Structure formats: C-alpha cells, structure tokens
C-alpha cells in the first residue's frame, strides 16, 4: 500500500502527516496552517488575539475559536483546574511573551540544578476558567473582562484530532503535531505505527510501542526552557496557584489516550502533579514519566506489559 508523508513547520514545531493519498496529506497541511494562523497567540491578527484584546464580556467567535476555547475548558474540567487556560498573564510574566520557535532551549541539567524545591502544582482556588463560557447558540465566548485565554496548552492535541477527523475515511493514517500523535483508520488496528518515546536527556529512544487507533502525547519542561535576565530558569508549564513555572520532580511525561487532546491534557496534568500523583493519572491508558535524575518510570498498561515481558 502506498503511503504519502509530508513534514513541515507549523504551530512553531515540526508537523508530520502520513496518509494513503496525496490529497489527504495536502488537505491536512492547508487546514493546519489555517488553524495556526487563526489561533496563534503570537500573531496579532489571529482570532485568539482579537478575543483577548476585546474588552466586551461577550465576544463573537468563529466555530474554530469556540472549539479551541471549549477544548481548553474541557482540559481544565478534566484536571480540576490544573491545566488552566487562563494562566496567560503568568506565562508572560515568566518570560514567554513571544514565540520561542527556533530558539535553542537553555541547558536542562543547569536548570534542574538551579531550580527551587520540587513541589506539585495545584489549581488556583479562584478557578477563573469556570467563568468562561462558550455559547454556540449565539456564536460567542463569554468571560469576565480582562480574563485572557491561551489555547496553546491544548492546541496541538486538538489540531491532531481535527486532522484525524478530516482523514477519517482513510484506511490508515497518522498525524504528528510536534510530538502529539494521533493514529486512525480501520487498518491501523492490524498495522499499527511504530512510535518512539524520546528521552529528554539526549533524545535517544527510551521506549518503543506500536500504536493503533489512538493517541500519544508528551509534555515537558525540556523544550520551552529559557534563562531569565535575573539568571533564573523558567519554562512554560505554569503552576496555576503560584503563577510560576512548576518544578515537580518530573522532566517529561508521555501519556496515551483515545484522543490527542486527552493525551496532551493527561501528560500536562501528570507533569504538574509530580511523580506519584502523575503516575496515578496515567494508570488508565498508560504513560512514561521521566524524573529529574533521568530515571524512566512506566505507568499503567505499559508498566504491566513490561512486567509481563520481564
């Protein structure tokens, strides 16, 4: 069977699409580039930036923007506020006001050595995200004035799922949005894709698995990592309670789930929760946790499979 493959830059990362026909691959690229243009917080002309600039409580929003906001709210609900789409001001304060695409990350070992005491992140008691509402009937997003939204935390997973929906008629396909993977098609059950989980220290594969219809995503502090003018290190995973980058004892977390949105959400929530609570979050679908010292911990079904193989 012929398989077409296309790799391109989009959403500040590498995107890879595999599908049986060229038209499907090209359609995926066109759609993803439109997605990025309309929802990037780094493009002033994007719909997301327009929403965040608007001082009205109810703002007209396209179906795509409403879907993106809904995905962010779903993630907050799923993680009880740990993956919070309203932490954009804290993210800016931490130094992530402009895109870091193409910028080499700071040294991970140095950052971990200088990081404060490890502590699990916690939801903000105010839970501002609960005051954000998507009104599909009227085509508007309602939120208190001044509450800015960042759909980036769930954007790549949502994008992978949306492309999967567009490719649903194909017998087998895969979408990789910067490490957030979605596999689909009836034939993927019999012929799954080989997936490597890259180790954050060095990038070599630390785990291999065969993924049929489903998704896998990785979240971590090793890629969007920078040094602030005061010499301290920061990254993009914010503790909603403190508004500061979360140092929890985990460097990366990879999560499996039926959809890329859920996998990305679980990976972020597990990393923010720290080692023990994070492993519990991955118990259902499975995942891989990498500790600060480089130790690799398998969770859920992956751990059971490894135990049986041993």
């Amino acid at each position: 069977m012929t398989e077409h493959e296309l790799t391109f830059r989009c959403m500040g990362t590498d995107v890879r699409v595999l599908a049986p026909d060229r038209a499907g691959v090209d359609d995926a690229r066109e759609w993803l580039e439109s997605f990025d243009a309309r929802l990037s917080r780094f493009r002033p002309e994007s719909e997301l930036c327009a929403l965040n600039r608007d001082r009205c409580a109810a703002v007209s929003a396209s179906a795509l923007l409403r879907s993106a906001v809904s995905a962010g709210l779903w993630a907050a609900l799923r993680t009880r506020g740990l993956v919070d789409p309203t932490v954009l001001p804290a993210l800016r304060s931490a130094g992530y006001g402009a895109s870091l695409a193409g910028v080499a990350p700071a040294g991970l070992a140095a950052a971990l050595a200088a990081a404060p005491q490890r502590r699990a992140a916690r939801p903000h008691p105010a839970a501002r995200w609960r005051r954000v509402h998507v009104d599909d009937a009227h085509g508007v997003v309602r939120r208190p004035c001044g509450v800015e939204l960042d759909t980036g935390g769930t954007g790549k997973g949502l994008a992978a799922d949306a492309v999967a929906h567009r490719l649903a008629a194909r017998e087998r396909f895969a979408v990789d949005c910067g490490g957030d993977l979605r596999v689909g098609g009836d034939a993927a059950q019999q012929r799954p894709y080989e997936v490597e989980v890259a180790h954050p220290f060095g990038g070599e594969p630390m785990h291999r698995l065969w993924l049929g219809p489903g998704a896998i995503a990785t979240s971590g502090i090793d890629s969007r990592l920078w040094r602030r003018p005061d010499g301290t290190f920061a990254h993009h995973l914010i503790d909603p309670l403190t508004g500061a980058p979360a140092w929890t004892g985990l460097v990366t977390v990879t999560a499996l789930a039926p959809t890329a949105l859920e996998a990305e959400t679980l990976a972020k929530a597990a990393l923010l929760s720290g080692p023990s609570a994070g492993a519990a979050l991955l118990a259902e679908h499975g995942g891989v946790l990498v500790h600060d010292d480089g130790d690799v911990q398998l969770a859920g079904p992956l751990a059971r499979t490894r135990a049986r193989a041993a």
Partner: protein
Amino acid sequence: MTEHQAPRRPRRPGLLAVGGWSLAAFAVVLALLVAQMRVGRDPALGARPAAVAAAAPRRVLVRRVIVKRIVVDEVRDAEDGGATAPARKVVLVPQRTAAPAPAPAPAPAPLVTKTS
C-alpha cells in the same frame, strides 16, 4: 321261517389301492410344497413380514476432482537456435503473467513523541 343273514363285513381295500392312494397323496402334498417354495414362501422360514420397510434409496455421491493444469510453453532463448521444441512445463497453480510486483516501499521512519 326267517333267515337271518350274517352282517356283511366291508371289503377291505386291497393292498394296491392303499399304496396307490398314499403315493398320490404324497405327490399332491409334494407338488404343493414345491409350488410354495417357488414363489419364495418357504414354510420353514415362517410367514414374511406384512410390511417390509422400503429400503431408503441410496444416495450416490459423485466426487469430482478437478485439477487445473495450465500448460505454459516456455520459449527458449535463442542460444539453442530455437531448433528444439519448446519445453512444456506443468504448473498446478494458476500463474499470473502480469508484470512482477514492484519492490515494497520502505517503511516510514517511526513516529516520535517528545516535548515540543
């Protein structure tokens, strides 16, 4: 005066008559038995069952073994000058004569999940 006549004793059959009648009776009985045996009613075997179940008609299964033989005439190369008769090769499996399948495309590189 009345004369009383002595009662007449019946005449005893003659020896020849008795023998003749016995022989005739034996012959009649023998003829009856022969006739009965001829029609299959052997008295020694008793009466035939009133209704003999009709034997089920035997099903005859015809098993056909079909062997497909495709005879391929291989044209010899010109090295033998074509003088010899073409070799005949018997192939029991249908053989496609279409162009050989192209080599399978190399498998794509594994997908990689990592922080981005």
